[in-house]
């Protein structure tokens, strides 16, 4: 089991912002995302990871399992928090296409992705994990990560382009 209980709680608390961000990218709506974060915390506090486990990766794995196995099955409401905040992604020119879409549109586009694609997109694009690390977290081959990530990116690019034409 993962170290001293007090240390473990402090370590988990220090990771709470990243857990909430990951949950938001999966569940979309703030309330649903925090439900997911809460379920993840409670699961981790009840059953701590093995001593040699990387806590952050373990946390994301537990969160992903809860989301796919439980919360999605209960059909959590998506985009229940309407947010019209316009997001202007950094970059532009050769660095990347400058797009302006609303948070609601990002949530909606992410929600259209198959579950595993969405999780992979979150781990790589939002959390910054390498393909190898993502494969470890999800227990999938690297080739699967590569192919599903590229499909997710292409689908999102399409969605955001459509969104831009509406603005």
């Amino acid at each position: 089991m993962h170290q001293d209980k007090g240390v473990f709680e402090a370590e988990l608390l220090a990771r709470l912002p990243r857990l909430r961000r990951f949950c938001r990218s999966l569940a979309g709506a703030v309330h649903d995302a925090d439900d997911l974060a809460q379920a993840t915390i409670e699961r981790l506090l009840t059953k701590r990871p093995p001593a040699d486990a990387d806590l952050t990766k373990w946390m994301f794995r537990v969160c992903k399992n809860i989301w796919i196995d439980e919360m999605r099955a209960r059909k959590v409401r998506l985009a229940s928090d309407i947010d019209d905040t316009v997001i202007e992604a950094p970059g532009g020119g050769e660095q990347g296409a400058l797009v302006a879409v609303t948070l609601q549109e990002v949530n909606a586009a992410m929600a259209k992705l198959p579950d595993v694609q969405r999780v992979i997109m979150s781990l790589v694009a939002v959390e910054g994990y390498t393909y190898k690390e993502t494969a470890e977290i999800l227990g999938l081959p690297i080739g699967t990560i590569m192919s599903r990530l590229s499909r997710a990116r292409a689908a999102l690019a399409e969605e955001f382009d459509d969104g831009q034409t509406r603005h």
Partner: protein
Amino acid sequence: MKYDDKTLSAYIDGELPKRELAAIGADVKADPLLRARIARLKGADQTVRAAYADVIDEAPPERLLQSFKGLGAPRRPPSFLARATSYWPAALAASVALVIGYYGASQFQAGPQAFAVAKNDFRVLGVISDGHAMFESFETGQSAQIYDVAGQDALKVELVLSFKSVGGDFCREFLAYRSADAFHGVACKADESWTVRIAVKTPAEIDPSVGYETASTDLDTVISDYVARSMSGEALDLDQEKAVIAKGWK
């Protein structure tokens, strides 16, 4: 198009063999269609990343913190959670301009925007990886020494002590400060980067001749308590620390 999305996606992430990356890079320079496709795929990433970036700075809702309180360890100071909430980096509005670590450590994300300077913003979060202004201090600096952070006006880093954690990682307690703004925290070496495990803003009492002096606040006890709980054995002495630095913290 010469390359499919799967290959271009891996190219964006730097996840191809060097030779293949170089070959694609040369083709990208010469082919505007390839550049446009890469820009679209990158744009999708950047939009998603930007959409959820602010979550990291939000103060967690009380119900999530209650999850910790409900099962809290009796050894933890009772005020810990409340203070952690009050001093969550999002709530800070210090008048300095630096972001220390932001997104993850991947090659692709270590671009300029990963460490973008924002006025009135001082965050100590995430990962300090090679190329980051503070990386060298963490990697080679000795404890009890104060280092100027290159390219960051008047920002100083003091490594307080080094230790091996109960999880087997090497960690460093640090102070990062400028003027009256200071952060006190702990970062641990994982893979090739330093990950900030915990950090709090703390009032700075800085004497230019001796550097930062602990202001003896309860917040500092949060960090010292964290260090005490995380440490396996004793802190490294200077000779042990030199030896570990020479081995790249392995």
